[in-house]
C-alpha cells in the first residue's frame, strides 16, 4: 500500500510529535501558574476560611512544587489516566470526548463552507483579472478577512435568530443524535467562523490561478485549442491544489482556535468554552487534557496534509 519513504515519514512524524506534546503541555502548565487566582479558593467555596483553603491544597496536592505536580500529571497521562476536573470531578477524557466532537463538527462545517464558497469565488475572480467582478470579489474578501468573528456572530444572531427566527440563537445538537438538527444549530456559528476562510481561499486561489493563466504553458494550451474549462480543470486547479491544501490545513487550525470566541457567543458546549472556563478556574487537569487533544489534532491535520501533498504532487518525497 504505502511506499517505504512514506512509512518512514509517518514514523518520523510520530516520533517528532512526542516532544511537541510534552513541550506544549509543560508550557501551558507553566503559564497556568501565572494566571491570577487559586483553584483551592474556588474549590473551598464562597467565604471559606484560610484553614479550609489550606486543607484543600493538601487534599488535592496543590501544595506540592510545580514540577512535582507536572511530573505526576505526566506519569499518569502516559498511562492513559488524564485525571478528573478538580472542581466538578468529571473525568477529563469524558469531558473531551463529549465536547471535542462538537468543536470538530463546527470547524469542519466552517472549512467546508470556506472551500465550497471560496473556490468558485476565486475562480471567478481569476477568470478576468482586474475586471469589476474581480474588484468586487477581492474587495469583499478584504472585508471578510477583517471582520471579527464575534461581531459577525452577534449580527447573525440578532438577524437570523432573534428577528426572523430561522435558526436557533444558542445551543447545539450532536451530529450523532440528529444530523439535520446538528446542521440547523451549527449553521450560524459555522458562518461566523468561515468568513475569514472564504476570503483567504478566494484570494489565494485567485493569485495562484492568475499566475498560472499567464504562464507560457497555458498560452500553449490555448493555442492548441483546449477549452478554457478543460485548462482550468486539468491544468489550473491541479497545479494550485497543493497551495489550496496548505491554505485549508491552516484554516482548519485557525478555525480551531477561533472557536473559543464563537462558542461563547452561541453557548456551544465545545472545546473553546471548556478551555476558557478551566483556565479561569485554574482547573489544570482539564486544561492539560484539552491542550493535548488540540495539539494532537493539529499534528494529525498537518500529517494528513503532508501525506496528501505526495498524492497531489508525486514529485514531493518529503521525509
Amino acid at each position, binding site marked *: 500500500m504505502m511506499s517505504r519513504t512514506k512509512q518512514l515519514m509517518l514514523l518520523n512524524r510520530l516520533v517528532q510529535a512526542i516532544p511537541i506534546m510534552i513541550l506544549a503541555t509543560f508550557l501551558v502548565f507553566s503559564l497556568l501558574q501565572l494566571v*491570577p*487566582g*487559586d483553584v483551592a*479558593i*474556588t*474549590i*473551598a*467555596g*464562597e*467565604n*471559606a*476560611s*484560610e484553614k*479550609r483553603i489550606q*486543607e484543600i491544597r493538601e*487534599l488535592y496536592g496543590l501544595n506540592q512544587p510545580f514540577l512535582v505536580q507536572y511530573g505526576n500529571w505526566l506519569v499518569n497521562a502516559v498511562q492513559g489516566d488524564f485525571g478528573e*476536573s478538580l*472542581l*466538578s*470531578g*468529571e473525568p477529563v477524557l469524558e*469531558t473531551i470526548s*463529549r*465536547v471535542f466532537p462538537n468543536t470538530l463538527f463546527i470547524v469542519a462545517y466552517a472549512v467546508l463552507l470556506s472551500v465550497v464558497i471560496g473556490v468558485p469565488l476565486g475562480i471567478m475572480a481569476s477568470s478576468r483579472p482586474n475586471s469589476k467582478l474581480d474588484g468586487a470579489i477581492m474587495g469583499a474578501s478584504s472585508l471578510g478577512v477583517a471582520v471579527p468573528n464575534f461581531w459577525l456572530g452577534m449580527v447573525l*444572531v440578532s438577524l437570523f*435568530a*432573534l428577528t426572523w*427566527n430561522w435558526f*436557533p*440563537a*444558542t*445551543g447545539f445538537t450532536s451530529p450523532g443524535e440528529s444530523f439535520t438538527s446538528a446542521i440547523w444549530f451549527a449553521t450560524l456559528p459555522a458562518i461566523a467562523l468561515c468568513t475569514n476562510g472564504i476570503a483567504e481561499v478566494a484570494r489565494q486561489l485567485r493569485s495562484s490561478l492568475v499566475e498560472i493563466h499567464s504562464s507560457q504553458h497555458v498560452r500553449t494550451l490555448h493555442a492548441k485549442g483546449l477549452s478554457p474549462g478543460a485548462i482550468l480543470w486539468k491544468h489550473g486547479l491541479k497545479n494550485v491544489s497543493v497551495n489550496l491544501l496548505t491554505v485549508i490545513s491552516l484554516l482548519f487550525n485557525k478555525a480551531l482556535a477561533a472557536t473559543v470566541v464563537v462558542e*461563547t*457567543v*452561541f*453557548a456551544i*458546549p465545545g472545546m473553546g*468554552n*471548556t478551555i476558557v*472556563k478551566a483556565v479561569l478556574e485554574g482547573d489544570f487537569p482539564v486544561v492539560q487534557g484539552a491542550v493535548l487533544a488540540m495539539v494532537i489534532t493539529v499534528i494529525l491535520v498537518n500529517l494528513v496534509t503532508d501525506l496528501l501533498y505526495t498524492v497531489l504532487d508525486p514529485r514531493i518525497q518529503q521525509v
Partner: protein
Amino acid sequence: MRSKDKSVVAKGNGFTLGRREFLGLMAGTAAVASMAGPSALLAKVKDNGGTLRVGAAANPSSMDPATGGSGSDHVFLFPVFATLVDWEYDTLKAIPGLAKSWEYPDPQTLVLNIREGVTFHDGTTLDAEAVKFNLDRNRTDPRSNIRADLASVESVEVSAPYQVKLNLKAPDTSLPLVLSDRAGMMVSPSAIKKFGEDSDRNPVGAGPMKFVEWNDGDSITLERNPDYWKNERPLVDGITFRIITDSSTRLRSVMSGQNDLAYQLEGRQKPLIERGGSVEGVSGSTVYCFQIYLNHSKGPLSNVKVRQALNYAIDREALVRASMHGAGEPAYMNLPSSHWAYDADVAKLYPYDPDKARQLLTEAGYPDGIDLDMRGYNDQGSVQRQEILMAMLKDVGIRGRFKTGTISDMSAAYFARGEGDFLVSAWTGRPDPSLTYALLYAGDSYFNAGKVEPPEGLMDAIRASRSTNDIEERKKAFSTVQRIVMENALVVPLAFRQDIMAHTDKVNNLQTNLLGKPKFEHVYLES
C-alpha cells in the same frame, strides 16, 4: 415516565381542567365540588407536564451539597434535595420541610420531628437514621465544606424512628434556617456508601426532581420524582438546565426560544426583557448585598467618626440608578426591607448627607480630608461601582486610589493578609441573619479583616438572637445587633442585588426569593 393521559381535560364554564384537578373533582364530594367555583379552581396549581428548559448561570461546583462551595449550585441542588426546613420566598421565615416540626426543649437541645413515609430517589427510607447520617457527615467528613455551618452541634441522636435530637454546645436558634440550606439537604445514605467520592456527580436526594445526567459546562438533566411527598408537585415532567455563563447569551437563548427561562440576569438587560415581545421579566430583592468592608484596625478608619462619614457620604439611591439601572435596593444595613428581621429605624441612621460627612471628618481631626488605600475587583461591574463611589467620597474629602484584582486575589490580600483600608465587595447572605452578623463582625472571623474585637454588646446581642426561638424576640435581638453595627459603622452597606429572570409566556408562577437562589417548584408550563 408518565403516560400521555396527563392532557386529559374536562371542559366546562370555559375553564380547562388538568388531569389532577379533574381527578380531584371526581374524588371530592359532590358538595365540595359544586361549591368550588371557577376562582377556586383557577387558584389551584396546574399540572400540564412538559420539560422546563432553564438557561443556567454557572456549572455547579459539585452536585453533593456537602462538598460543593458555590452559591450558584443551589439552583441545581434545590430540585434534587429536599431540605429539613424550608423558607417563605418573600421573608425567608423558616417553615416545615422534611422536618414537619421542631422544638427547643431547652436552649441547648433541638428536636426535629421527621415527616414519615418519605423515600429517597433510590428507594431508601428517609428516617431519623438517615438524617443523623447526613448531619454527622456534614459536620465531620473531611471533604465537607459546611462543617462550620454545624459548628454549634455537639452530637446528633436518634431519639425515635422519626425523631432526631441535636445536642448543642451553646444555644443556637439559627439552626432551623441553617437546615434550610446545604446542611439540611438530605442525601441518600445508601447512595453515599455506594458512590463514595463519586457522590459529587451522582446526587440522590428526596426532592421533586431526580437526577439524570450532568455534562460539565453544558447541561444538567432532571426528571420528575413520581413519589414526591408534597401534594400536586412537581408540576413539570423534568428540568433541563443549559449552562450559559454569559448573561447576554443566556437572555438570547430565551428570546429565541431555546430556553423557557433564564435567571441571574443584569440590570442593564431589563429594558431588553421589557421590550422583547413574548419574553417577560420577574425581579425581586435578595439578601445579596454590595458593601464596603472596612478594616478598622488601622489608620483613619479606626476612628468611628470617619467610618460614619463614609456612610453619610454615599448617595445609595444614585448608586442604584447609575450602576444597577435601578434594579436594586439601596442598603442601609445588612438586611433588605422585606426580610423578617429588618428594622426600619436602623435603616434611617445614614441618609445621604455630604455636609454631615465633612463635619464628622473635621471632628475626627481631618479637616483637609483623608487618603485611603482602596481595594476592589477588576470586573466591569465592580470597576463601574468603584468609580461612582470614588466620585462621591472625593466630594466629602475622602481621596484615594483603587487597587483592583480578581475576586480571589483581592479577597485573599484584604481579608487574609490585612492589606488595604477597605474593600468594595459583596456579602452573599445567609439564610439566618445571626450567621451573617457573626461571620462579618466576630473578633476572630475571617471577614473581620482588622480582627478588631467587636463593640461591646454586639456578640451578646448575637447570642441573644440565638437563644430564643420566638420570632418576635429574635427580631428584637437583631434590631440591637443592627443598631450596634450601624452606629459603630462597622461596614458601609451599598445596595441589595435583585434577582432578575426572564421567561417566555409558557412559564407560569415563576417567583424570585429573598435568598436570590431560584427555586422552580411552583412553576408550571402553559401556553
